[in-house]
């Protein structure tokens, strides 16, 4: 039975696929498309078209793990060392630096913009002599494996639009997420798991929440929706059979279901019915595959030690990093983590220390772990938030305490593995940490580069919707060649 279903799906997929082909394709590429990808589901409608499952050129990375630091961590206490700000502590931000740039509604009414330097010290590490704050000692330990970009900039000045812009390439919020685009472009490597999964955690700092629209499929078919995973009891929504149901009973029920659907198919002849049978079989396989992929109980002791104590607590960022490694290893194309709590408008010194403690060790452990397993070369790891923070204090500045407002003009992120040049610092900002002086990287450039690493041309990964072709990078963006190995 199952074999026939598979054969049938293969047939449908192929025909469906061939009918959608509009561009010339070499036979080699076609060959790889004959592999059934049941998770992709059957796209009944939509005016999409386009090229599914085709890398445009040889990819460096096969998978992505994106450690999103939600709320926007300060670059000035992490990777962008500005001694000048300590020297000028309490002095006004010169107008020659600010140049009338817009401020958020939270500080636009402030009548003073006192500069403030980092409360934590910085040291230089690695071959690139990269400056890294003492808050991130473990990250400092992997400095030769990562590429720090200090010249990121974005268009939005508030969390919701900025996050949405980072994840979907547009601020307004009804476009597909980056993970959905990759699922659409490359499909899943593991037909029993979704291509795009999401893991959430919260720190102790001031948080801004996340929105499930961030992992929305937008106008792409729902198969490309991010699937939220947890390492709790029900790792995927609706995955568990009801209490009191045996796996053997589920199997029997599915056999009866398939038999009844088959009768319906013989009556009506609609191939959708057979697709439905296949989706139920896929769901059944997920019921086994997902708990296996999310089961951390068999991880050895030294792995937990590497990721830190928190990794034993389900739902923490550390546990999610470990889970991300497992999912990625199982072939999940895009694992998206969000760690909330990085919005330090006030109490920055105490909150930032707590937030850094949450993420520093597990982020570094993830890179080391992937490297030890020989997976770092084909896995792209990204760490960063949605914008940066101001070099002046928001609210009252004291010797012990200060805050920083949103700053879209410059901020820092890092990337590792997957074809990114390791041990490099890219881009620079002025001595005030306010404006970019060298090699600016716009969010769309970043997105174009990520797609490039996965073998996709951001101008050709398109989806037609309502008469227009859409892409992740909207209407701009260029790959940054300097970041590539």
């Amino acid at each position, binding site marked *: 039975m199952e074999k026939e279903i598979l054969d049938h799906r293969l047939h449908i997929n192929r025909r469906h696929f061939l009918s959608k082909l509009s561009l010339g394709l070499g036979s080699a590429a076609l060959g790889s498309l004959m592999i059934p990808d049941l998770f992709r*589901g*059957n*796209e*009944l409608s939509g005016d999409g078209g386009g090229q599914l499952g085709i890398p445009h050129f040889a990819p460096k990375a096969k998978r992505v793990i994106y450690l999103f630091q939600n709320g926007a961590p300060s670059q000035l206490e992490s990777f962008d060392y500005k001694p000048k700000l300590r020297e000028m502590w309490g002095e006004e931000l010169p107008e020659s630096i600010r140049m009338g740039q*817009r401020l*958020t*509604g*939270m500080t636009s009414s402030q009548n003073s913009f006192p500069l403030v330097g980092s409360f934590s010290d910085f040291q230089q590490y690695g071959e690139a002599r990269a400056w890294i704050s003492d808050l991130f000692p473990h990250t400092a330990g992997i400095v030769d494996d990562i590429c720090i970009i200090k010249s990121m900039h974005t268009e939005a000045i*508030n*969390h*919701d639009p900025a996050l949405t812009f980072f994840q979907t390439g547009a601020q307004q*919020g*009804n476009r597909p997420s980056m993970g959905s685009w990759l699922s659409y472009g490359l499909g899943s490597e593991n037909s029993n798991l979704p291509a795009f999964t999401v893991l*959430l955690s919260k720190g102790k700092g*001031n948080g*801004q*929440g996340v*929105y*499930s*629209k961030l992992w*929305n499929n937008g106008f792409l078919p*729902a198969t490309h*929706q991010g*699937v939220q995973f947890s390492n709790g009891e*029900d790792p995927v*929504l*609706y*995955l568990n059979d*009801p*209490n*009191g149901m*045996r796996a053997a*009973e589920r199997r*029997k*029920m599915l056999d*009866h*279901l398939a038999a*009844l*659907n088959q*009768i319906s198919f013989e009556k*009506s*002849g*609609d191939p*959708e019915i057979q697709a439905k049978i296949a989706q139920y079989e*896929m*769901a059944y396989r*997920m*019921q086994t595959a997902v708990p296996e992929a999310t089961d951390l109980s068999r991880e050895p002791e030294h792995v937990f030690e590497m990721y830190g104590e928190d990794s034993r607590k389900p739902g923490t960022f550390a546990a999610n990093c470990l889970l991300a490694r497992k999912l990625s290893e199982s072939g999940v194309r895009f694992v998206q983590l969000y760690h*909330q709590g990085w919005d330090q408008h006030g109490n920055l010194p105490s909150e930032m220390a707590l937030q850094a403690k949450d993420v520093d060790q597990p982020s570094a452990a993830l890179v080391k772990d992937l490297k030890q397993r020989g997976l770092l070369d084909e896995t792209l790891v990204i760490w960063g938030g949605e914008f940066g923070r101001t070099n002046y204090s928001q609210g009252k500045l004291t010797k012990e305490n200060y805050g920083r407002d949103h700053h879209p003009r410059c901020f820092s992120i890092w990337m590792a593995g997957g074809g990114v040049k390791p041990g490099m610092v890219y881009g620079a900002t002025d001595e005030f940490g306010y404006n970019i002086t060298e090699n600016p990287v716009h969010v769309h450039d970043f997105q174009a580069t990520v797609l490039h690493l996965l073998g996709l041309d951001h101008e050709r990964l*398109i989806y*037609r919707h*309502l*008469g*227009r*072709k*859409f892409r992740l990078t*909207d*209407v*701009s*963006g260029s790959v940054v060649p300097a970041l590539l190995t």
Partner: protein
Amino acid sequence: MIGVLVRMKVLLGLLPGICLLLWACDGESNREHSIPETISYNLHIRPILSENCFACHGPDANKREAGLRLDREEDALSALKEQPDRHALVPGNPDASEAYQRILSTDKNERMPPPPSNLSLTDNQIQLIKKWIRQGAEYEPHWAFVPPRKAVLPDIESKDWVQNEVDYFVLAAMEEAGLNLNEPADKSSLIRRVYFDVLGLPPNAEDLDRLAGKDLNLDALLDTLFANPAYGEKMAVHWMDLSRYADSHGYQDDYYRTQWPWRDWVIHAFNQNLPYDRFITWQLAGDLLPEAGKEQLLATAFNRNHKITEESGAIDEEYRVMYAVDRTNTLGKALLGMTLECAQCHDHKYDPISQKEYYQTFAFFNTVAEWGIEEASPGFSKKSPAKVPLMEIGEEDVKDILHFVNLPDSARRVQALLANMGKGTNYNSLLAEADVLKVSVMGEPDSARRTFLLDRGMYDAPKEAVEPGIPKAILPFPDHLPKNRLGLSKWLFDSENPLTARVFVNRIWQELFGKGLVATPGDFGMQGNLPVNQPLLDWLAVDFIESGWDVQGLIRKIMQSATYQQSSVVPPEKFEKDPGNRLLSRFPRQRLPAEAIRDLVLASSGLLHREIGGPSVKPYQPEGLWEAATSGRGNLSRYLQDSGKYLYRRGLYTFIKRTVPPPSMMIFDASNRDACEVERLQTNTPLQALVMMNDPVVLEASRVLAEKLLETGSPTPNLIRAAFYRILGRKAEKEEFQILLANYDSFYSGYSEEPERADTMLSVGEYPRKDSLPVVERAALMQVISLMYNLEETITKS
């Protein structure tokens, strides 16, 4: 010539930065094969030019290359700006036509489209262009901008099949392709289809019994169904998608909002069969009508359903502009079927809509006396569930003119506003608002505000001032109309407006057949699909106007056709000829939308609580979703599940928190209501299978129906048959029944050995258990019913 080339290279160097490559038309592959006798500009040529040429040689004046414009006949035929002795197109003479020669050129610096654009023409397309030029290169106006006319009914062979005018047009197209209609659907399928399409609910067993045994009188059935208030609820679902209705403001902490009285009005308006012209006029301009009352004012909440920010730090003007942009784009997509938004930052690349015209349209919506972020402005309450301009709805209103608003008691209102709120400023200001229901509506214009063209669409880059207006290519704005939203409504319903009726008729067709006659319901422009049957679309549009915009009349007209009433069986030879069923040689089987799936489960099990309107409800949802995603602030930071009857309301009443919409609905392709949507996808995924197998609402419904049936005391086989009848609307065939019985038996024997497992299984859901009934039978029957809910046919309109 050299000038052209140099400029072209410069342009191509800039390609990544401009969006001309992002647009494309629908190159429909079935036109690839043969060259027709007569070449039509609209059918054959315009799609090619639009896809490949208009980005640089089209309506956008700022991006136009070499001064050449190919989308308008007078420009395309005149002398080339840079080569006055040459012409892009010379009617009758492809060899002298520079455009054609450039397409043929093998020199990559000469060839059009330029190779770096990644665009290229197929041989077939080149042949079409050649033949078109040879036949005189005649342009035609864009079909959708020419007002529809009723064509004479076509002469067809299979007149025997015809039920009404619709069939003439459908059959004419079909006969050309060697196809014919299917046999009429069997009665039970047709009844179920009609129920889903009119009420969004399955027929109940009593209805089926009543209709059994005699010929179906469809007209009489429709009379009954249109009189059922469930009709308004069904129609409201699509309208809520289009109007981006939700129960939260949509940004960041995403607080609660109270726009639901508008949704109650929509249900009421459909149930009253309010003519479409008034339905729209009230929503666009109800506040400006001379006879404006509270009902008309409430209708204008349509234009305040968009997202509104409450994020500290947001810049007021940036968001205020965004709201007016949203209204403008919604007008385009929902009512005109035009992608107006493409002209927000520059002239439209394909459609004759200039950026100036965009801001003229925007001007209609730019004078609302509103704030971008209200709470940052002095004197405003924080986190209010409605934003100015607003209306208040008191108990006396509900007794009188707004009788259709289902106003809950104040305790429930207070609970909705203050749930989760820790004491503090926000708590206090919400508490102060709890006593009266408020809805954001359109209101007194802020007459001081002028509208400017915004450079690149940026809120802080105003250029020249503009007056209210519309894209002239659609239909010029008559001088005698006021330049406000009321005038705009009159323009929409001018008898010569080519779009309004077509766009609506197309969407009704889409609701019934799954796909519109124009497959791009939000784009009737150059890049949209051509209608698959324009004479039919136009006939229906004109008929709709002549009927006085009678919505129920339109639905009735389509349902009376043989096309609608045919069987959905898919004969292999028809599948071969028309796999996508664009010609409708069979009724297209369609998966039900998310709301209808929920309604089917609740209705067939007897759980459905039939109450119309009121605040949205929070049924079962997997735990922790809102909590995991929240900052901890706000009255929607935790999901406080409802209980009792509120667990069993129809799907359209499920609470939509925009930032975390209900997962079981999203898995079935519902809209998260971020922006206007005019169609939903119909996907088929394993997550949908998981929902149907394990969602507590399906399991609870299975249990409750099992219990209700067991209470009748009939023997098990009869109970299985009865459940099947209620869920699938037909009697089980023998073979089906055998499988269902086998399923029952296998669970029965398992549970007999371990009755405690049966008991665990029965514990799902809050609806009281009937523990006087035997446990093992109950659980086994529950499992069979759950199986029935998982059948493909159950959630399919066939």
